[in-house]
């Protein structure tokens, strides 16, 4: 079948670090477009779906998952050298993921709580975003990422333009869809005002408050929202747990969670220390 342009097919890789595989599954979930996409791109590395392997180079590399082991820290640096463009996909790769909850705790104690022989588990002290180790060219948000945004990313790179992804809060998505505000009408705490949209206001449409899985919107006033939760009678611990979720290690949400006492279940550091990068001044 003739393709639109005669330009050579871009070499695409899809790899994972610490993650659930759900974001790369989103690519396979583009059922209608999958075969046309496979014709437009040369998918050279995608071990979840293909036994054909390539260590690079890649024109575009999609990276799922957070960096949480010494091997991953080494590998991501190598992968970056092989990738013309590196795009992180999902809450783990962008913000450290739900597993970054452990960053609040003493790592050795945390590890010992799950593994009988923690000394055999190779694991970094923290689960961190890919961008802490290498330069990232673009990010797709979400836990999991949005199929629409993934499609837009792939189409835009294939024709050589910037992806057009709307930057706005979940609140605006609610307004656009005429969803009645769950916070105003039912008093349900919702992170929608401070969370990047892309889900189409999914949780409010289903009668729930947003739990922030797309991560903080730029310049979000999370401090003010937290104060509003507290004013409406929520205890500090409850405020902290709302922000300490799937993108809770993002700077914006982390500082609010810290100001309200941190997430539940933390095992304090053996040597008293603030969690790295957890400023305590976000309360005012």
């Amino acid at each position, binding site marked *: 079948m003739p393709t639109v342009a005669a330009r050579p097919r871009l070499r695409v890789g899809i*790899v*994972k*670090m*610490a*993650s*659930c*595989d*759900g*974001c790369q*599954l989103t690519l*396979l979930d583009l*059922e*209608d477009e*999958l*075969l046309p996409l496979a014709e437009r791109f040369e*998918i050279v*590395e*995608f*071990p*979840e*779906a*293909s*036994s*054909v*392997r390539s260590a690079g180079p890649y024109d575009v590399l999609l990276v799922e*998952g957070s960096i*949480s*082991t010494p*091997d991953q820290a080494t590998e991501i640096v190598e*992968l970056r050298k092989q990738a013309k463009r590196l795009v992180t996909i999902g809450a783990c790769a962008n913000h450290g*993921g*739900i*597993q970054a*909850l*452990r960053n609040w705790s003493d790592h050795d104690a*945390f*590890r010992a709580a*799950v*593994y*009988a*022989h*923690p*000394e*055999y588990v*190779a*694991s970094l002290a923290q*689960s961190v975003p890919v961008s802490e180790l290498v330069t990232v060219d673009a990010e797709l948000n979400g*836990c999991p990422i949005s199929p629409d945004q993934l499609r837009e990313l792939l189409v835009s790179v294939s024709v050589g333009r910037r992806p057009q992804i709307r930057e706005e809060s979940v609140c605006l998505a609610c307004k656009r869809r005429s969803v009645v505000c769950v916070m105003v009408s039912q008093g349900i705490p919702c992170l929608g005002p401070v969370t990047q949209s892309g*889900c189409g206001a*999914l*949780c409010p*449409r*289903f*009668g*729930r408050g947003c*739990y922030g899985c797309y991560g903080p919107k730029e310049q979000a006033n999370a401090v003010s929202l937290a104060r509003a939760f507290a004013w409406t009678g929520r205890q500090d611990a409850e405020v902290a*747990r709302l922000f300490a979720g*799937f993108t809770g290690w993002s700077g914006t949400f982390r500082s609010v969670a810290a100001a309200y006492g941190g997430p*539940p*279940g933390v095992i304090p550091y053996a040597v008293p220390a603030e969690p790295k990068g957890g400023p305590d001044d976000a309360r005012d």
Partner: protein
Amino acid sequence: MHGTDGISTAPAPVAGREFKVDYITRVEGEGSLVLRVQDGQVAEARLKIFEAPRYFERLVVGRTGDEVIDIVARICGICPIAYQMTATHAFEDLYGVEVAPAVRALRRLLYCGEYIQSHALHVFMLHAPDFLGYPSVLAMAGDHRPVVEQGLAIKRLGNRLISTLGGRSVHPISVRVGGFSRAPRRGDLDGVRADLDEAVEMARATVALVASWDPPQFNHAQPLVALRHPREYPYNDGRIVSTDGIDLAPGAWSEAFEEHHVEGSNALHARTRDGRAYQLGPTARIALDADQLHPIAAEALAATGLADEIRTNVHRSIVARAVELLGACADARDLIDGYREPSAPRAPWTPRAGVAAWSTEAPRGLLHHRYEVDDDGHVTAAQIVPPTSQNQEAIEADLAAFAPSVLDLPHAEATHRLEMLVRAYDPCISCATHFLDLRIVGPGRGWALR
């Protein structure tokens, strides 16, 4: 490591042969396999998991049941509903919540959606290339486009069903302790219902198609374990039963099974309390619940004539999976036809202290959760036993039993056959990993003993 071709070309040790796949492809998550042969005997067969640990049992400490549902979904992007369902049933069992029949039906319908998408993914996209001789479904599509398109169409329907009930297909958001945050209107289901007729026919054809593919010869029976319910296929509910007489409530998993610490290893493996490996998944369910299969699926299974061979040749799991795919499509159709909107999507409940434990049937097999909960409904300790960690010993036992039949093949082909056997289990390494890591068993230990 990403990028290597997976199959090791390192020379075998002089005294024996070693088959290695450094990165098993077309499975969920990161693992490798090593099989070592000494003087024509299998000295070691091991599935090694190098997926990064994520500590889920500890991440849920301090969280409420509703928060746990959202968190444990992230153990696996392929089967999040299995995790959500198991957790929600566990908390409801502890809190004494009676869910409305319509809500119970919706849960079964949601689980059908997961079976459809997960099984279609594995049958068509991960496993079929092994039978048809391609490295991936994308390569396969060049010569077998109608088959691939059929698989994608079925998978799409499963995803649509999940999205209709749960908002999105990966990590849906509507499952809550006591029910759903929102129940669909009858009309919301019309679109999916209309497509299910065609899906049933496509799935029926799929059973016949995959049954026509010749598998490697293999005959190795293992004890099988699954849920069993007296009136229905046991997606969410039933007693834990086995081919050798186990019969337990869904929360009582630990009475018959235990996580075992293998010497020299940090991995916990599940075994029966008398130390035996056992097999979970479509094979086990088909064997133990054949009479509860939807009649359409039962008929399709009978037409293959493979009901017995499925039990002893794990390469035939693709047939078992296709039969369940058909069953889930047919069950989903019936559930939608019988659906009446519940008066309330969610039953009220109050937390209480105790142990919340349940098991459901994830697409890959029995999934067990156990949470210790305080007076406020906050988790104080958790145990999550995914199907793949339970299957791991069965996989290794099968590798050891299967290996002699491939030793005369060229090295690369033999290695490929071994990797194919692992894939037949549809292992979900992402699931297994929150407590599995390197497993090292010295040569001569482990295998010959069982």
